[in-house]
C-alpha cells in the first residue's frame, strides 16, 4: 500500500495540470450535491419550524385529509370515545402581512411578516395547555369579540401593550383586535400566534362554522392503549380525516422535495460526468504507462499490486476531490442560504436558519465522490493488471482487443438507446427521465463503433489534404490506426455539447411556453395578488364584497376571481379552485389543451363538473371524461372531468377548477384569493388607479398590480431563473469541455516521440503544427456533430418530460446549436494549439528522449 501510494502520488504530481483537471470533475459533482443538500433542507427546516411550532400536551392531532376546514360538529363524534382525557377544536390560519404593515417604515425590514391566527374555544384550550398570562391581563372568554391574546415578543415587535389594538387583514377588510392578555415571550421558532375566540377567526377567514384542527390529549401513556384510542378516533371520524401529525404544508413540502430531487439529479449528472472524465483519463493513463506497468510486472509486481496502484491513484483523487468539493459545497450552500434568506422571508414567510449540515450528508457526499471515482477507475485498473511483462519489452499496439470490446459495447449501447426511446413513448415521467440517462450512457458505449467509420473517412480526407505536404501517411494513420484515442476524445466532446444543446432546447421551449401562458392567463388589466401565490392554503382571501366594490368603480368592465378550497381525491391533496364560468373567461383565461373552451365553462355552470390541469391527470392517472370522487368537508362528491387546461400560477400544483357555486355548496368557501379586473375600452389605468387603491387599502393581504407589470415582473423573474440555469449549465459544461481539451492535449503529448521522429526525418515546424491542429479540429468536429444530435434528442426528451405537466411544444434551440458549434470548434482549436506549438517547438533530440 505504501509503495502504491508513493507511486500514485508521483504519477499524480508528475502531471499536475491533468490531475487538477480531472480532480476538478469530482470536486464539482460533490460540490453540487453537497451544496444543494444544504440549501434545501435548510429551507425545509425553516418551513417546518413555521408549520409545526404548535406546542402543548397534545397527543393526537386531527386534520382533514385535504388540509382544509371541516364543520365544527365533526368534533362531537369524539364524545364518549374511551381513553380521551380532553380535546379542543381550533381554526388556524397563517395570515401573511404585506411589507411594512407592522412598522410602516420601508427603510427597516419588518420583524413580523406573518402571524398564525388561532381561533379556539377558551375553555377547551385551557384543558389541554396552560396559558401563563402576565398580570393584569386575562385569557380569552368565549363571548369576547375583537379580543386577542399575543405573546410578549410579538407585542414588542408590534410596539403595542395590554389594551392596545392591532389590525389584521381579514376576508371582510381590516379587523381591529384589542389585546386582553399577554403571554410570555415565544421561544419556539416559527410564526407568532394571535389567539382569538373560535367565532372571531371563523369570521375573519370567512369560514363560518368551520374548524381545521382538533387537538386531543389521551389518558393513558401505555403504547397499546394509545394506539387503541387513536384507532377509535380514526374509525369514529372516518377516512376523510387524518389522525396524527399536523402537516398543513404538504403541498409546499412536495415542491421543495421536487426541487431537491431535481438538484440531486443535477449533482448526480455532474458526478457522472466527472466519472466519465476520470474513466477517460485513466484509460489514457494506462495506455501511456504500458511500459512502466510491464516493467513493474517483470520485476515481480503481482496483478493485484498493479490494480491496487491504479485504484490508489483514483482513491487519492477521489478523496481529495470529495473533501475539497465538500468544503466548497458548504461555502456555496451557505452563500445561497444567505442570499435567499431575504426573498424566502418576504415571498414565502420562511425564516431560514443557519445552514443545516447532517453528518449523514457529509458521509454520503464523501462516499459518492470517492465511490464514483473508484468505480470509474475500476475498468482501467483491471485492464492495467492485464498488461504483461512483455509489454514493457516490446510495446505493441493494443488495438486488437479494443475492436472486440467496441463490438460488445456497441450492442449494449444500442440496447440502452432503444430502452430510452421506449421510455419516451411510454409518456411516464420517471421512465423518460431514466431514459435520458440511459441515452447518454448508450451513446458513450455505442460511440466507438459509430465513430470508427467517420474517423476513417476523415483520415482519408486528411491524407488527401496533406498529400502535397508529404506527411499524408502519418496524418491518415493517426486517425485510422488509433480509433480508440479518436473515440475517447470525440465522446468527451460529445457529452459536453449534448448537455449544452439539450438544456438550450429546454430553456428555449420553456421560455416560449411561459410567455404564451402568461399572456393568456394573466392578461387582465389589474391583478390582486395574495402573498403566497399558488400556496393558496396559507393565503387569507377576501369576502365577495371586495370584488363587488371593485366592480362598482367607474370604468371597470368586469371582475373575476379565483377561490380556493383544499380537497382530496384518493388521499391525494388537490387544490380546488372556484371560478365564475361567466365572468372568468371575459377577464382571464385558461390555456386549454383538451376539450372545448366554451363548452367546458358551460359545463362548470351546469353541474358537478371540473376542468383539471396536467399535473392532476398525471398524478391521479385519470383522463378527461372520467368521474372522480372528491373528498369535501361535506363528504364525498362526484365530479366529472370535462377538459384539461392550465394557468401559469397553478401549473405545477395538482389543481381542479370548479364553479364558485359548487365550491360554496361543497366546501363552504366563498372568499376570493385571487382577483383580476378588466377596464372598459378606452379607460386608462391612471383614471381608476386612485379609486381601486383606496378600496384595496382595506384588504392589505393583496398586492395590487397592473397585469402588464405583473407579466413584466414575472418575465424578469423568469429571466433571472434562466440566468441561474445557464450558470449551472456552464458549470456542467465546463468540466466536459475541460475533459475534451484534456484528451486532445494528451493525444498530442502521447505522440511527442513520434512527432520528434517526423521532425528528425525532415518535417518542418509548420507542417507539424498544421497536422496537429487539423487533426484536433476534425476530432472536435466529429464530437460536435454527434453532440448536437444527442443534445437535440435529449432536449426533446426533457421537454416531453416537462410536457406531462406543462403542455409545451418543442422549439428548436438554434442559439444552443450555434453555441455548441462555436464552443466545440473553439475548444478543439484551443486544445490543439497549445500542444501543437509545443510539439512544433520541441527540440528533435528532446522528443526522442521523451518517455
Amino acid at each position, binding site marked *: 500500500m505504501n509503495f502504491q501510494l*508513493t507511486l500514485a502520488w508521483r504519477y499524480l504530481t508528475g502531471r499536475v495540470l491533468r490531475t487538477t483537471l480531472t480532480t476538478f470533475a469530482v470536486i464539482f459533482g460533490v460540490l453540487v450535491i453537497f451544496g444543494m443538500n444544504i440549501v434545501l433542507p435548510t429551507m425545509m427546516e425553516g418551513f417546518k419550524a413555521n408549520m409545526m411550532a404548535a406546542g402543548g400536551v397534545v397527543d393526537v392531532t386531527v386534520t382533514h385529509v385535504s388540509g382544509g376546514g371541516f364543520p365544527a360538529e365533526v368534533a362531537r363524534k369524539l364524545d364518549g370515545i374511551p381513553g380521551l382525557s380532553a380535546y379542543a377544536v381550533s381554526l388556524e390560519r397563517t395570515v401573511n402581512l404585506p411589507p411594512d404593515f407592522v412598522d410602516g417604515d420601508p427603510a427597516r425590514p419588518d420583524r413580523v411578516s406573518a402571524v398564525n391566527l388561532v381561533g379556539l374555544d377558551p375553555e377547551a384550550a385551557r384543558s389541554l395547555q396552560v396559558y401563563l398570562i402576565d398580570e393584569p391581563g386575562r385569557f380569552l372568554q368565549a363571548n369576547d369579540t375583537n379580543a386577542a391574546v399575543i405573546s410578549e415578543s410579538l407585542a414588542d415587535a408590534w410596539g403595542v401593550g395590554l389594551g392596545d389594538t392591532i389590525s389584521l387583514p381579514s376576508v371582510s377588510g381590516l379587523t381591529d383586535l384589542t389585546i386582553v392578555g399577554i403571554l410570555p415571550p415565544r421561544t419556539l421558532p416559527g410564526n407568532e400566534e394571535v389567539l382569538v375566540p373560535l367565532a372571531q377567526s371563523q369570521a375573519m377567514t370567512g369560514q363560518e362554522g368551520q374548524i381545521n384542527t382538533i387537538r386531543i390529549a389521551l389518558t393513558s401513556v401505555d403504547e397499546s392503549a394509545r394506539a387503541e384510542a387513536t384507532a377509535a378516533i380514526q374509525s369514529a371520524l372516518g377516512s376523510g380525516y387524518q389522525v396524527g401529525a399536523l402537516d398543513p404544508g404538504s403541498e409546499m413540502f412536495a415542491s421543495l422535495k421536487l426541487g431537491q430531487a431535481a438538484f440531486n439529479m443535477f449533482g448526480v449528472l455532474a458526478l457522472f460526468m466527472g466519472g466519465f472524465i476520470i474513466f477517460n483519463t485513466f484509460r489514457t493513463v494506462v495506455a501511456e504507462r504500458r511500459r512502466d506497468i510491464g516493467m513493474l510486472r517483470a520485476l515481480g509486481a503481482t496483478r493485484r499490486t498493479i490494480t491496487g496502484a491504479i485504484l490508489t491513484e483514483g482513491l487519492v483523487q477521489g478523496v481529495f476531490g470529495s473533501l475539497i468539493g465538500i468544503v466548497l459545497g458548504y461555502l456555496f450552500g451557505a452563500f445561497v442560504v444567505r442570499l435567499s434568506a431575504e426573498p424566502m422571508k418576504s415571498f414565502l414567510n420562511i425564516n431560514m436558519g443557519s445552514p443545516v449540515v447532517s453528518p449523514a450528508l457529509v458521509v454520503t457526499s464523501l462516499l459518492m465522490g470517492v465511490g464514483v471515482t473508484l468505480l470509474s477507475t475500476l475498468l482501467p485498473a483491471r485492464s492495467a493488471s492485464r498488461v504483461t511483462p512483455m509489454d514493457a519489452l516490446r510495446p505493441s499496439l493494443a488495438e486488437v482487443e479494443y475492436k472486440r470490446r467496441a463490438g460488445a459495447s456497441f450492442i449494449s449501447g444500442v440496447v440502452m438507446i432503444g430502452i430510452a426511446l421506449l421510455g419516451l413513448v411510454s409518456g411516464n415521467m420517471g421512465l423518460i427521465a431514466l431514459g435520458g440517462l440511459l441515452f447518454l450512457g448508450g451513446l458513450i458505449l455505442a460511440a466507438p463503433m459509430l465513430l470508427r467509420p467517420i474517423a476513417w473517412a476523415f483520415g482519408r480526407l486528411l491524407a488527401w489534404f496533406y498529400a502535397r505536404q508529404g506527411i499524408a501517411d502519418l496524418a491518415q494513420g493517426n486517425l485510422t490506426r488509433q480509433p480508440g484515442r479518436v473515440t475517447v476524445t470525440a465522446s468527451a466532446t460529445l457529452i459536453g455539447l449534448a448537455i449544452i444543446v439539450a438544456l438550450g432546447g429546454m430553456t428555449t421551449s420553456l421560455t416560449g411556453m411561459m410567455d404564451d401562458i402568461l399572456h393568456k392567463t394573466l392578461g387582465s388589466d389589474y391583478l390582486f395578488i395574495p402573498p403566497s401565490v399558488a400556496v393558496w392554503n396559507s393565503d387569507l382571501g377576501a369576502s365577495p364584497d371586495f370584488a363587488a366594490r371593485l366592480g362598482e368603480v367607474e370604468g371597470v368592465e368586469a371582475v373575476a376571481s379565483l377561490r380556493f378550497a383544499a380537497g382530496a381525491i384518493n388521499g391525494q391533496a388537490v387544490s380546488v379552485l372556484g371560478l365564475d364560468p361567466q365572468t372568468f373567461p371575459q377577464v382571464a383565461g385558461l390555456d386549454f389543451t383538451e376539450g372545448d373552451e366554451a363548452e367546458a365553462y358551460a359545463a362548470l355552470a351546469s353541474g358537478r363538473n371540473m376542468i383539471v390541469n396536467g399535473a392532476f391527470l398525471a398524478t391521479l392517472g385519470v383522463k378527461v371524461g372520467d368521474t372522480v370522487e372528491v373528498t369535501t368537508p361535506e363528504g364525498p362528491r362526484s365530479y366529472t372531468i370535462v377538459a384539461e387546461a392550465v394557468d401559469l400560477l397553478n401549473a405545477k400544483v395538482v389543481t381542479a377548477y370548479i364553479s364558485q357555486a359548487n365550491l360554496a355548496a361543497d366546501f363552504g368557501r366563498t372568499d376570493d384569493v385571487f382577483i383580476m379586473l378588466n377596464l372598459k375600452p378606452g379607460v386608462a389605468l391612471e383614471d381608476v388607479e386612485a379609486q381601486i387603491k383606496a378600496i384595496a387599502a382595506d384588504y392589505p393581504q393583496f398586492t395590487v398590480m397592473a397585469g402588464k407589470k405583473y407579466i413584466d415582473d414575472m418575465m424578469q423573474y423568469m429571466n433571472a431563473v434562466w440566468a441561474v440555469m445557464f450558470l449551472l449549465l456552464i458549470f456542467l459544461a465546463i468540466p466536459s469541455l475541460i475533459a475534451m481539451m484534456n484528451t486532445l492535449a494528451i493525444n498530442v503529448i502521447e505522440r511527442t516521440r513520434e512527432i520528434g521522429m517526423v521532425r528528425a526525418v525532415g518535417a518542418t515546424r509548420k507542417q507539424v503544427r498544421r497536422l496537429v491542429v487539423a487533426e484536433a479540429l476534425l476530432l472536435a468536429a466529429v464530437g460536435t456533430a454527434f453532440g448536437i444530435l444527442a443534445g437535440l434528442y435529449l432536449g426533446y426528451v426533457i421537454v416531453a418530460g416537462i410536457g406531462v405537466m406543462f403542455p409545451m411544444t418543442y422549439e428548436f434551440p438554434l442559439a444552443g446549436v450555434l453555441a455548441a458549434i462555436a464552443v466545440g470548434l473553439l475548444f478543439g482549436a484551443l486544445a490543439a494549439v497549445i500542444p501543437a506549438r509545443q510539439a512544433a517547438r520541441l527540440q528533435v533530440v528532446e522528443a526522442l528522449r521523451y518517455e
Partner: protein
Amino acid sequence: MSLIQTENLTKIYGAGEAAVTALDHVNIAVNEGEFVAVMGPSGCGKSTLLHLIGGLDRPNEGNVRIEGVALAEMDDDALTKLRRQKIGFVFQFFNLIPVLTAVENAALPVTLDGVKPSEAKKRAAEWLTRFGLGDRLAARPDQLSGGQQQRVAVARALVSEPALILADEPTGNLDTRSGDEIASLLRDVTKKYGRTVVMVTHDPRIAAYADRIIFLKDGKVVDETNLERKGAADQIASKMKEIGD
C-alpha cells in the same frame, strides 16, 4: 543439478505466412554459479531466450526448469513471485520507471517483496554507491545519462540478491571502461557470491568475462565454447565471424 534447464524450447511469433520462429528446439543447461554469455547475430533469438528463461513470456513448445521446477506449471502469481525473489533482470532497453528516483527504481524488487521502504532504499543505495552513483540517488531517470541509467538497472537486478541474473546487453550503452566495470562486477557476483549470470552481448570483449559462451543462430544453438582465459576475446571474435555475424 543445473540451475536452468531448457527442453526443446520453441517460440514462434505470429502465425501462417508471417510466422517467425525465434527459438527452435533449444536445449541448454546452466549450472549454479556459472557465468554464461549468449551471443549471435541480431534477430537470432537471444532476447527471446532470456525472456522465456525469466518467465516473462511463455513458449509455444518445450519447457524451462529453474531449480528443477517447470515454469509451465506455475500460474501467474507463482511466476511473479519467482521473478521477484529468484531472478534479477537487466534489460536491453532502459526501462526504468520515469517517475521514481534512481534509488527508488533500484529498490523496486525488494519494495515489491514487502521489505520496509527505508530498508529497501538503504540496500539499493549501497549497490548504487558501489556503481559510482552515490551522489545521484535522488535523480530521476531523465536526469541520468544512458550509461548511468544502465548502472541503475544493474543495481536493481542485484538488490534482491537473486540466485539468477539475466542481463540483456547490460553494457550496450556504456563506454569501454564502464562496460568492463559492469562485466567484472557480474563476474564477481558469480565468483564471490555464488550467483548465476546469463548475459546477452554482442561485444566479444565483454563476453570474454564469461565462463562459457552459447552461440545462437536462427533460433538454434550452433556452438558452445568453454573459454580458457588467455586471448579469449580474439577467439570469440573469430567464432562470431565463423557463424556469420
